[in-house]
């Protein structure tokens, strides 16, 4: 199953771009999602919601995509996942205070996808909301 992405614009307290993911995010297609996000950033997106309602599967390469998307939305180049990862402190993310950044947020993950995020600690980096409305209210 391929991965299809659908983009929408929404207005919360700030303009939010929503990417809906439909299918499976794996090593064969995660770079496409990064490139999609790069295009959105260049077009002006600064707040992004990933709607995971129809994402059936996410591999560890999907986690690399999430890291890269976060950097892109902060105006940084995505990292080389194998060459080492500079601290995101340079992006102004204060990880010591327990506050999670709000520029990139996630909503409605299926149980298997949520387990991946939880098991790898990504829930400390991204806010995960039960549905789109709740997520938009959090921007």
């Amino acid at each position: 199953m391929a991965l299809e992405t659908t983009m929408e614009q929404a207005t919360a307290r700030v303009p939010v771009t929503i990417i809906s993911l439909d299918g499976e995010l794996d090593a064969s297609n995660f770079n496409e999602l990064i490139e999609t996000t790069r295009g959105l950033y260049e077009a002006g997106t600064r707040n992004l919601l990933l709607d995971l309602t129809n994402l059936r599967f996410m591999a560890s390469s999907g986690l690399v995509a999430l890291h890269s998307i976060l950097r892109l939305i902060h105006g940084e180049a995505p990292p080389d996942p194998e060459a080492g990862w500079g601290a995101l402190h340079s992006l102004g993310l204060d990880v010591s205070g327990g506050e999670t950044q709000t520029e990139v947020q996630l909503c409605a993950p299926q149980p298997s996808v949520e387990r991946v995020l939880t098991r790898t600690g990504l829930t400390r980096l991204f806010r995960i909301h039960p549905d789109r409305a709740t997520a938009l209210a959090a921007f």
Partner: protein
Amino acid sequence: MSGSADRSQPATPRLASRRLASRRLASRSLRVSADLGRLAEVRDLVRAAADDAGATEACTADMVQAVDEAATNAIIHGHAGRTGWVEVGATTLDDRFVVTIEDDAPAFDPTTVPDPDLSVHPAERRPGGMGVLLARLCVDEMTYRPRPGGGNILTLVRTFERNGKEDR
């Protein structure tokens, strides 16, 4: 009919029940070229084997995750752009869901890969290297042996859970 039933009557019902439970419930295999575009077929194979045996969502998803990560590593780090194949065999036996991932890539034992330090905030650790960790977290056993004649065989085992039983 009744005579036949009498002959088939086990000496001890408990023993017969044990024999029935130890039956191999489902077995499927698939060989694909070492191409990331074939990973979806590998995942579908595992799902089909799990569905055959009535696995729970969590049991199925865990094994799909572990197999995908192992097959991805075999293609990216094992074959590393060279032509080759990956073969996946999935079997449920008793309370064990067993999947083997076999390839003809240079020898590499993923069970020796150290886990990333999850105590480090994700903003401060590198994003790669999570695949083997995820695979480990999804299964109960991960064992490696070299393939006779060249290549690798990785065996993943997870406790099999059927629908109607409590998820872990």
